């Protein structure tokens, strides 16, 4: 069914303009996502993102179930990064109920979140390069590394993607024997993969000419449009919640926040490479200094969990940007209001601004550099 917007567009087509509905089943749209594009030759004149194909009203479902009942469902938001989704939700509930997380659990959270970031960024670069026409090979290299990290998740949580691991005030289960050594091995080998990736890509002439100066996002617009994550930092804004909010234990670790200068697709690619290197640093420190101890707050309870009436907004630096959960409790077992602040959706706000005047083939890689997951956009 054409949207009202689509009809509106056809009126200003003066014969020379061409309307293209890219998606919802277009290989470059990373899921069921549509771009209604108006083209002048090959130049984009107008672009409206259309989504909602995967909408299942996650928020309404969560309002009808207990607090803990939504935890497995948060895995399905951004299915690449289920552990950071768990963390953001757990953080919001902990703020709402005033739970304290033991140190070991915080360590495990930091470690799993950084592993998640590694595999997310590696795969994103793979997908981005595939959008440019490097069919498969870089993506498969990234997936090879991702497998190793998913194996770690599997031995820790029992699931490779839908981890459902965090609990309010801690984590579900402790690390299995030998997990730390296995993780240290994976982390120690990871920089070699980044070097290999960079050797092939960072100095690659095709990649540079396709991405440099394409899809430029200005600093002012990025801040005003609420862009977060690597996309914001590629525009040169120093805003990383790991540094700003210091949630978890991030103030204990030494790492830097890489910043871009031009805000184009190449910077967004490069920021992710550099962030992977910083994540490796955090992981090395975390895996070396984790101490035994309890992994869950004794005050938290799985059954009969009823936080006092009130509200809380908790947010973390997910691989795609700021993931926030806003909860209102009326004292009952279910949240009165449950809201997900999806970074993917809000980062799409400026898609049109970045694509205007660019070639249609570049719109594809600009979308690729935003890093969206439709499970989270549509919720």
């Amino acid at each position: 069914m054409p949207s009202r917007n689509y009809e509106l567009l056809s009126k200003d087509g003066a014969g020379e303009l061409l309307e293209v509905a890219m998606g919802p089943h277009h290989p470059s749209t990373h899921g069921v996502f549509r771009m209604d594009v108006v083209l002048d030759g090959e130049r984009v004149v107008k672009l409206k993102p259309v989504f909602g194909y995967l909408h299942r009203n996650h928020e309404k479902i969560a309002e009808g179930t207990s607090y803990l009942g939504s935890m497995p469902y948060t895995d399905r938001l951004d299915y690449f990064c289920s552990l950071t989704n768990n963390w953001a939700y757990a953080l919001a509930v902990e703020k709402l109920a005033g739970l304290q997380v033991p140190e070991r659990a915080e360590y495990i959270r930091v470690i799993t979140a950084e592993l998640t970031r590694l595999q997310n960024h590696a795969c994103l670069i793979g997908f981005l390069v595939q959008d440019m026409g490097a069919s498969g090979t870089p993506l498969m290299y990234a997936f090879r590394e991702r497998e190793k990290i998913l194996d770690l998740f599997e031995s820790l949580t029992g699931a490779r993607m839908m981890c459902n691991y965090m609990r309010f005030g801690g984590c579900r289960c402790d690390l299995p024997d030998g997990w730390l050594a296995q993780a240290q091995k994976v982390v120690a080998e990871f920089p070699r993969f980044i070097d290999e990736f960079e050797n092939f890509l960072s100095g690659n002439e095709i990649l540079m000419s396709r991405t440099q100066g394409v899809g430029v996002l200005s600093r002012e617009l990025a801040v005003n449009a609420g862009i977060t994550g690597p996309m914001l930092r590629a525009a040169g804004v120093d805003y990383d919640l790991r540094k700003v909010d210091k949630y978890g234990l991030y103030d204990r670790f030494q790492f830097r926040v890489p910043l871009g200068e031009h805000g184009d697709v190449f910077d967004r690619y490069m920021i992710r490479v550099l962030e992977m290197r910083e994540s490796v640093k955090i992981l090395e420190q975390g895996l070396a200094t984790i101490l035994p101890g309890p992994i869950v707050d004794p005050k938290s309870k799985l059954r009969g969990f009823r936080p006092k009436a009130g509200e809380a907004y908790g947010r973390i630096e997910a691989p795609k940007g700021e993931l926030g959960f806003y909860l209102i409790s009326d004292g009952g077992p279910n949240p009165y209001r449950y809201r997900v602040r999806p970074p993917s959706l809000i980062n799409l706000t400026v898609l049109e601004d970045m694509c205007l005047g660019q070639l249609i083939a570049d719109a594809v890689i600009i979308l690729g550099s935003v890093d969206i997951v439709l499970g989270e956009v549509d919720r």
Partner: protein
Amino acid sequence: METLDQIKLRIEAAVPGAIVGILPNDSPSAQRSFLVNREHGRAVAEFLCADASLKLDYCSNATGIDWPEAELTEKIKVKQVVDGVEKEVEEVKKTLRPGCLEAVYHLYSMEKKHGPVILRMRTANRADQNHLPSLTPVWRSCEFQEREIYDLYGLVFDGHPDLRRILMWEGFQDFPMRRDYVGPDDYEYEPTPHDDVLEKAKPHQSVEVKK
């Protein structure tokens, strides 16, 4: 960052006529929020965004809340004379809360790295007076989020550049996030609805499909 009470005084000085209330929050998060009257919501938002010491240049989260009409019961202790002795008796006081739709904005500052300041606005009721000023001209990040509030709650934002449904399809007629929303029947699972299922499906289909 200044306390909310200080910010409140400065808002009232900068935006004459604005009625600013501070809503309490008893939970451990202690995130209290401003409730601003809708006529001055836009001006207050502009002040918060531009003020040199606050610089709330980043609206992280914008969302809606539905408050249907409800009878609130509150237990209060009243002194009564029972058989010549003064006693404290618990009495249940019932108040009728009028229904409204609410928009909540979580504001942060990327430049000063502080926050959140929480801004709320309420509509007069849930039926015909469901309008609020749009804050998209102040913060672009509200663009999709306000569309989502409109889509799921039926809250109309005046001054929004492109207020359309965003997640539900064009022509869908209800607002699914409202508390009193009744979900559709089994028509969704019928590949080709017919008979009484078709009748149930019709109100949810778009105008184009109906004719």
